[in-house]
């Protein structure tokens, strides 16, 4: 499959594909950081969505910010990052 064909069916530009990867990587990094900080005694508690990065980044990309309403749960760091929450 050629470069364009693999992703054409999704209608996502290269920029948006990289944005999804960025969301997934930031999700992974921040949650690992949460566990580190907890083990260092700096924060009392952290949860992890390690393994959920794909479903959350995909859903975030489909979400229309300013139009849709999001009701996430505690494991949705990637989803909220994807819709615009900053680290």
């Amino acid at each position: 499959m050629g470069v364009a064909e693999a992703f054409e069916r999704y209608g996502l530009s290269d920029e948006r594909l990289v944005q999804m990867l960025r969301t997934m990587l930031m999700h992974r990094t921040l949650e690992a950081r949460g566990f580190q900080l907890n083990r260092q005694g700096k924060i009392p508690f952290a949860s992890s969505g390690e393994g959920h990065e794909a479903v959350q980044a995909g859903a975030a990309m489909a979400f229309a910010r300013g139009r849709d309403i999001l009701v996430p749960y505690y494991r949705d760091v990637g989803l909220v990052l994807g819709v615009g929450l900053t680290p």
Partner: protein
Amino acid sequence: MLVTFGDGATSEGEWHESLNFAAVHRLPIVFLCENNEWAISTHISMQMAQPDVAKRAAGYGMPGVTINGMDPLACYAAVRDALQRARSGGGPTLVEGKCYRFLSHTTDDDDRTYRPQEEVAERRKDDPVPAFEALLTGHGVLAAKEATALKQSILDEANDATDRAEAVGYAAPASLREHVYGDGYEPWQ
């Protein structure tokens, strides 16, 4: 509206009530289940007899879609379609993304007490993050050098956020009462 939850939540009465109500009134809601097979220490086989959460949708009279939750593009497409259906008056959808929880439920949990680490290691082969990176670099969407730079910039941003959070310090104890009630109602006085 996009609402998310895990596999464990689908055993709650509230969940069933919500789906039924949404379907009856054709509410514009996408119910996204992030099925990671573990509700803290309860494996999905002990949570439900029907392992495909999305199959329950038919019981409520709404469409149900099961997707590979480790594939971000498939998840994007399914949620996009469901949101479009909701926005155009087509009613609710139940989308189920099958993924896996690689770590313990939280820092207060130790998954070594209830599941074999061999299972986790086996499922780690489906890790969506390196897989998607490899997909993008393999198809030339992102050069290897750019991927490295991207990861460095993410680490820098995470470090900066950590430093700023640590510098802020703790809130004053008096602020505990702020935003609890509105209109100046303070029953503790």
